[in-house]
């Protein structure tokens, strides 16, 4: 495979590491969730790249076409996207509740409030 053929996977790794870094390094709960979403999205791109075959077309029966992309990874990732949305929604709901009871969405301030009581 040429250098260019691996381009997608380089992007995937880059996005994944950026997302992972945000999750670890950021103290803001909403930003953490953004990082988490980025992290998950990079895996979606990986799956979509897996199914692509060079010179192939979408897997719909057309006259005169013999080479199709593999639809299975794409279908799988539809499920994973739904799961990802559910996770993000639940995470944001938790952040709303945290904001209501702590009055802040910063990790260090939450720790400080827990220590003091």
């Amino acid at each position: 495979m040429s250098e260019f053929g691996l381009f997608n996977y380089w992007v995937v790794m880059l996005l994944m590491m950026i997302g992972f870094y945000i999750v670890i390094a950021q103290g803001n709960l909403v930003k953490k969730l953004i990082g988490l979403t980025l992290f998950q999205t990079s895996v979606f791109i990986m799956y979509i790249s897996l199914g692509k075959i060079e010179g192939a077309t979408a897997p719909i029966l057309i006259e005169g076409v013999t080479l199709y992309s593999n639809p299975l990874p794409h279908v799988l990732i539809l499920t994973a996207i739904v799961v990802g949305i559910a996770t993000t929604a639940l995470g944001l709901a938790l952040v709303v509740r945290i904001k209501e009871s702590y009055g802040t969405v910063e990790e260090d301030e939450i720790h400080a409030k827990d220590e003091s009581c």
Partner: protein
Amino acid sequence: MLANLSIHFPVLQVVVPLMAAPACLLLRQRGLAWGFAVLAMLVAFAISVALLYQVIAGGAISYALGGWEAPWGIEYRVDLLNAPLLMLVSGISAIALLAARTSIENEIPADRHTMFYIAWLLCTAGLLGILSTGDAFNVFVFLEISSLSAYTLIALGKDRRALWASYQYLIAGTIGATFILIGIGLMYVMTGTLNMADLAQRLPEVSSSRTVFTAFAFFMVGVCLKLALFPLHLWLPNAYAFAPSVVTAFLAATATKVAVYVLLRFVFSVFGYEFSFSHLPLQEILLVLGLLGIFAASIVAIYQTNLKRLLAYSSVAQIGYLILGISFANETGVMATLLHMLNHGLMKGALFLSLAAVVYRLGIAQLDQMHGLASRMPWTMAAFLIGGLSLIGVPLTVGFVSKWYLVSAALENGWWPVAALILIGSLLSVIYIWKIIEVAYFKPVSATTPDVQEAPLGLLLPMWMLVLANLYFGINTELTVGVSQLAAASLFGGAP
């Protein structure tokens, strides 16, 4: 009629709680929802018992979902490895649900009770799904179903720190699940299949490629995050400490065990013993982390004053024992792990349910409020005592049986120091259990002890069911030991 239906048991096992969840939403009224949820769980439990006996009598059951044969369709597969775990998960879920009605009265606002039962059923359905499916991607989907509902259940805790604990668990859990997803994707790209049996056949052909190593690494780290292997356990103590008490009892007894099952299934059945233990230093890694987990978590547990937190750390230590059993990489070791998964489920269920009773009366399970509590709540504390003895591994309880096989597995490998360390680890658990027993039984009732009565029957009955199971399976080991032995043998190359 029942005979026709019994063909569909592998999928009904999952579908019954899964469909009962939206049905509860229609019932609305919380008493009705509870009754219906209990009914659904009892049916699920009956199915799991039937499945276990079918498997013992006739070997593994394969079920093609929607009539599509594997490897094209999704296969559900029940064999000796997952049948007893199905029974454990559905049984504990049913028993804890019985106790839930009373226990959550004081812990969760009444308008959220129906939702609580729905999340509970979904969580159970997810866990049962992970166990019974034979499809790698299905594992991920069910893992997320159980995790998402578990985050919800934990966040319902009455302390506001429950929200924070749930958030942390969500972050850690999602990273773990995404790692698993990467692992499954890479396995698919090398083999072109997602069916576990098919994967097991095709992976050896490509086992020297770097992609397969990467898949294995991602998958293992993801699962270890989910099962809270030391040092990836940081989400667990807070989540267990601040969740509603019955939720802790349910999750502690089942969720981590199911993750250990996934580890066993992929290490032994899918990647195969050859690949996992010969090409990679998996044995050394698991051995060291298992031992570190036992000691670090037990020592931290000794210094805890909140009992739920104390037992949560003890859970991390017990996971160390499970991993240790796998790291021995011999039949007795894996058998000990299987046995300890079942037994630890029973004892932690009993212990956390007795704490649920303490929390019901006292509002919190704090050590300094429990002076002489045994005279006020004799049945609850007696249940705690027996559960504690089982945790330590005293003869006539289930804990003894699994520790016995664990030590003999260590000796089989000639690892004397490890066997000694297992025994020292048990001594540490004596310390933290004794600390509680001493306060509850031998300290006089002091001014800080609230004036309380014995817990209501709705809590005592489920609690004692589990306590009696602890004693019964500690004395009559035929079923548990027999099944674990056969399952371990099948993982080591015997016909499944």
